[in-house]
């Protein structure tokens, strides 16, 4: 097989690129943090499909007339045609206030659908976010154990680095664009975790197979072997991410408003997952696996 572009030996490029993105993401985090939804922050969120172009000023005016003034920064416009208003209240709305909103909305916005009200107590918000973090960590742990048993621990470690890299990039993008982080976002990150490792395993599986067929005798041969394995699985990697992306993109453009953020997280994660499997996970494994070869060479030349 004629080896095309040498990915493994150019790994410094990709490591640098990913490090830069990660550092940029970290800075964004420290500066702005997440835009937490009601699932993670106590309060009420009201989502109303107005079925007319949303003007924040008009919504503000309606709210203050209804006796529920909020800062205008708490009103966001959503939906494909900007016909959905999302209003965040820092406090938990009472039943009476919710009733007022429900009864009043059609007076000002005649085509509006019934408001969708989500309310979360601080206690639940706390519990939810703790569970979400645990879920990601535990999922990673179990995946490491599985891969370490079926392959070897170095594959597991390289796979986990790629996986956390993807999860982190998705989180950075959300922090950067101030997209609301809610429970479905957690589901999306977990899917990315699952997909990223799935994608990586297919490449590792090919490396494992090639290692058995022609065990490399030197570090040079190891690098060639991994590079070949990468190119042997390249068509599959591209075709697969293309089909999954088709599904995710269609959900993003045509799916309902409530899964819009979810699919955005998926799209970012899918692209990052495909990239990290090829350009991060496999070269990283080469670095770790290569150490024993380098040591062996040093011993022989000594």
């Amino acid at each position, binding site marked *: *097989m*004629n080896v095309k572009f040498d990915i493994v030996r150019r790994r410094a490029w990709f490591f640098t690129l990913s490090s830069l993105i990660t550092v940029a993401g970290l800075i964004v985090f420290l500066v702005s943090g997440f835009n937490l939804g009601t699932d993670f922050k106590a309060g009420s969120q009201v*989502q109303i*499909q107005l079925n007319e172009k949303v003007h924040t000023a008009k919504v503000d005016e309606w709210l203050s007339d209804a006796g529920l003034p909020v800062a205008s920064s708490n009103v966001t416009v959503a939906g494909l045609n900007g016909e959905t208003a999302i209003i965040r209240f820092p406090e938990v709305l009472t*039943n009476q206030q919710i009733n007022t909103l*429900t009864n009043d909305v059609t007076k000002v916005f005649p085509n509006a*659908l*019934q*408001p969708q*009200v*989500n*309310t*979360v*107590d601080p206690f*639940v918000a706390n519990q*939810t976010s703790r*569970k*979400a973090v645990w*879920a990601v960590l*535990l*999922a990673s742990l*179990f*995946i490491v154990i*599985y891969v370490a048993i*079926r392959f070897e621990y170095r594959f597991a470690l390289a796979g986990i680095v790629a996986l956390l890299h993807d999860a982190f990039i998705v989180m950075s993008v959300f922090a950067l664009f101030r997209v609301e982080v809610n*429970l*479905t976002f*957690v*589901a999306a990150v*977990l*899917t990315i975790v*699952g*997909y990223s*490792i*799935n994608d990586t*395993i*297919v490449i590792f*599986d*090919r490396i494992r197979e090639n290692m058995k067929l022609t065990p490399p005798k030197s570090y040079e041969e190891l690098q060639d072997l991994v590079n070949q394995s990468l190119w042997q*699985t390249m*068509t*599959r990697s591209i*075709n*697969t991410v293309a*089909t*999954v992306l*088709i*599904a*995710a*993109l*269609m*959900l993003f*453009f*045509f*799916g*309902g*408003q*409530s*899964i819009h953020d979810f*699919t955005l997280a998926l799209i970012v994660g899918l692209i990052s997952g495909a990239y990290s499997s090829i350009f991060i996970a496999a070269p990283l494994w080469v670095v770790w696996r290569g150490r024993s070869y380098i040591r062996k060479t040093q011993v022989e030349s000594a």
Partner: protein
Amino acid sequence: MKWSRFGSFLLIAVIIIGLAAGTTMKLWRQIPLGLDLKGGISLLYKIEPVNNEPLTQAGIEAALQAVETRVNSLGVSSPQINLENGNEISVQLAGAFNQAQAEQIIGETAVLQIYGNIKMGKDNKPVPVPGTLLITGRDMESNATAGLDSTTGQPVVDVTFKNKALWAKITKEYLGKTVYTFLNGNLIQSATVQSVIENGQTQISGVGSMQQAQQLAKELNAGSLPYPLKQIASTNVGPQLGAASLRATLYAGLVAIVLIFLFMIAIYRLAGLIADIAIIAYAYLTLLVFAGFPITLTLPGLAALILGMGIAVDANIITYERIKDEVRNGRSLQSATIAGSKRALRTILDSNATTFIAGLVMFWFGQGDVRGFAIALMVSIIVSLLTAVFLSRTMLLQLTKSNLFRNPAWYGARKGGAGK
């Protein structure tokens, strides 16, 4: 040329497409939809301990029972009441109705107390004198009814005490004196006992409008809660909004399916067609699983199923790429199919197992939406293994063994393409 092989290939394809076309709509109607797709309210209550004493198992069960009685009094079809995290009760009610009224009936306890004496409280409100509590709503039968008083025309609630002797003793003791009725800490009635009541009945006035009287009767009948409930979360989805989400997501799924079908045929030709038939089987079987159990389908769940389609396609892509490799290495189409499928299976199993593990963890730790997503993900992984691996492998083998299409180009492969 073996027409029987080609015949069985065609038969499988016809059965799958026929089944899917004929019964999909029927299956779809049997799948219960989550509140986010059909509209409704979801409430979460925390059972609060009394006097810092730990909750007892019997008490929790009694609270659950009481909530059930209350929800049933709302007359909503198939409500879902579950205990979560050991001390939380979640209530899901489908359809559109008055959220405030439902919350009041489920969460609020009507504490009815009759005292023998009162005094003035801090803000000039009458409060009961401690130690003069005579009887409470807990001692009542669940047969309270609202009605109009025959003389005053005011709404009243007729109640019966369980312990008739006790009530008779109280009325005897307080004959000619005044007793004070408190509802939720507010004095609603002060009445002079006119006669000794032997049958345990009495009438409560001062309950407000007829509607409020009926509400009170309902609350009294629902029984008292062993522990107070605190509402900690509520979600309300309008039915039209739910339907709009469902329509939009289904439409997106349909467009995605058509595009993936075209993509697969463009790249893998006949093999791509087989993959497409396997996707139809995947979609059909997932619906079957959801309708059979039945599993409630939520919006994130629907998204997981569409994503699962991607996983199913991936299994096909891995297999076909493997077969192309084998053809490139000089194997005949048939032996390449057998060897390629076998080698690909291990890869597919390992990669799907890891995703399945992620799904399991999500199911364990998640709640609500995340759980719905995890279930759909796990179902789709198992179904996609069945269809994308076994079904599409069988069909591909039948097709290659028929020797009708011998040129690898029919399958998007080139013999000895990229030289070794």
